[in-house]
């Protein structure tokens, strides 16, 4: 059975055309404090939040939270902590022993504590997954209500690779006990300014 026979079988067997529904956003609208809800949801998924008085405090606050990080990659102009620089030529396997990656988040989603980051924000696709710990920098003004708004925000992007990231990697595969730090980042901290 090839492409043609699969498509023919579908054509023969599919039901009569059913219209595509419209998404009525008014059904999902809520007047809530987006920053507050984002905080709560990020904490519930195992993420940490540091609220900065001013963005100038960023590096000092990162150092306080990750005092032992030695190999640091920063993809953000606001942090000067990088000890290793990367480019799109960087071989991803060489990032194996990165302690900390610092990345600018494009925006956060209040309903689930996720942030959106795409390839341009972290240069090497493997970085946010292979780094031991993850720091994301997010402006308070860049938090949207829900995933419908989120997809609206990324609708005009250049589509290569992007990810909604909600907290550090985790698993409950052994007797349903939640363990933070599975195959990806062991911790995730969002610094909000």
């Amino acid at each position: 059975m090839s492409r043609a026979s699969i498509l023919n079988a579908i054509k023969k067997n599919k039901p009569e055309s059913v219209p595509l529904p419209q998404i009525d956003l008014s059904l999902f609208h809520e007047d809530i404090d987006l920053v507050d809800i984002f905080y709560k949801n990020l904490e519930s998924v195992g993420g940490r939040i540091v609220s900065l008085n001013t963005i100038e405090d960023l590096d000092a606050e990162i150092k306080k939270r990750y005092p032992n990080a030695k190999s640091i990659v920063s993809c953000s102009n606001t942090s000067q902590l990088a000890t290793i620089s990367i480019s799109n030529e960087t071989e991803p396997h060489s990032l194996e022993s990165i302690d900390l990656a610092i990345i600018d988040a494009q925006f956060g989603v209040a309903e689930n504590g996720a942030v959106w980051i795409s390839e341009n924000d972290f240069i090497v696709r493997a970085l946010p997954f292979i780094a031991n710990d993850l720091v994301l920098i997010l402006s308070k003004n860049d938090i949207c209500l829900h995933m419908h708004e989120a997809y609206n925000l990324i609708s005009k992007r250049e589509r290569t690779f992007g990810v909604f990231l909600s907290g550090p990697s985790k698993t409950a595969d052994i007797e349903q006990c939640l363990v933070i730090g599975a195959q990806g980042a062991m911790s995730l901290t969002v610094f909000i300014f």
Partner: protein
Amino acid sequence: MSHAKEAELFNKDEAKVNWHDQALWFVRNKRDKAAHTVKGWEDLRNLASAIKANVLSNLDDYLVQFEENAQKNGIQVHWAGDAEAHNKIVHDILLQNNVKKVVKSKSMLTEECHLNPYLEAHGIEVIDTDLGERIVQLAKEPPSHIVLPAIHKTKEEVDALFQKHLGTVPSHGDPRYLTNEARKHLRDKFLKADAAITGVNFAVAETGGIVVCTNEGNADMGVHLAKVHIACMGIEKIIPEEKHLGVFLRLLARSATGQPITTYSSHFNKPVQGKEMHIVIVDNGRSEQLSREAFRSSLHCIRCGACMNTCPIYRRSGGHSYKATIPGPIGSILSPGMDLKKHSSLPFASTLCGSCSDVCPVKINIHEQLYQWRQIITKNVKQPVVKRSILKMAGIVLANSKLYGFLGRSSRFMLKHLPKSIVNSKINTWGKARDLPKVENDNFEDWYKKRKS
């Protein structure tokens, strides 16, 4: 062996069954809590169901649109009519790239196609990288749940497995220690793999891109390190537009585990320069299921597992008792379409309570389809003698009020005076694990008549 017989085996360890039951019920409760916090949850379910209905009615067009857009982005698209063709396509891609080691993230489709044994027979190492899947792979077992593959294993069993295969020290099943050891073990595999195979949660016709959801980050660790990415999807994974992901991602993780979203929702649209990305689109009986009017909505399924977590039968019989790739209520309406005879006991593994349909994020009428499969199965597959004759006798008795009254009176008399060893004899399956309720003197009719006079 029938589901009932398999369930009996699972029920030999009562303590374990009780734990399994409670663990899944706990997940079901988390699902409820998560769903109740979302404004417009029922509207989301309606939308998701309606989008999927539209998808099925235009599936061929959407697949062609998806293929075109994926190819524009440098993704190679392949089509497989059945499991065998799928396995061969994957193997050919691996051969062309001289791949010896593969890491795989969770994909129920590759389970369905038995891809691992196929590749292993051709000398390729395949490592499942989801922790639960790795556990069952080491135990040489299939997953018993589509979201929680090792839910049937105790932590002590995992401990023993890891000692044997990963060389860990005994830890009395410390989940933190064992997870961390698995992390080290899998890191090594990720770094050495030549190719990564993933499933597909959603494929977007409008953009030609795919979305893969994990909590562990294992799909991304595999894909971004290996030089070849192969994503395998059933034809029903298509959604029309990217904005529809907003609907499905709000529903998926909340229904599955009660999380507001999976940790990683990765959007793959284009391979990195110098690397290859392949998508294998698989039919394997799905277009046939599409032809069955009563059952086609089973193809709406987004594989969240909510119907398993809520099902009183699944929770007490375990995923392996279904002897099907997808266990539980949804599996019981999908599997008979693949092999009616082999899976003929599955639609009977239900109380028809309807809880599965109530929690389904895409509103599949699962319990009604279970009932409809029963109608087809009793016509086409020979049923056990006891079941056939008892139902036939019941039909005669229930149609004759005098006979009904007589048999009612005599059975009440017998149940009262016969010894327990006879009342709970082999033929009374109810009596296997419990006693019958206390027998009263009158039936309702007698009691009602006396009450009037």
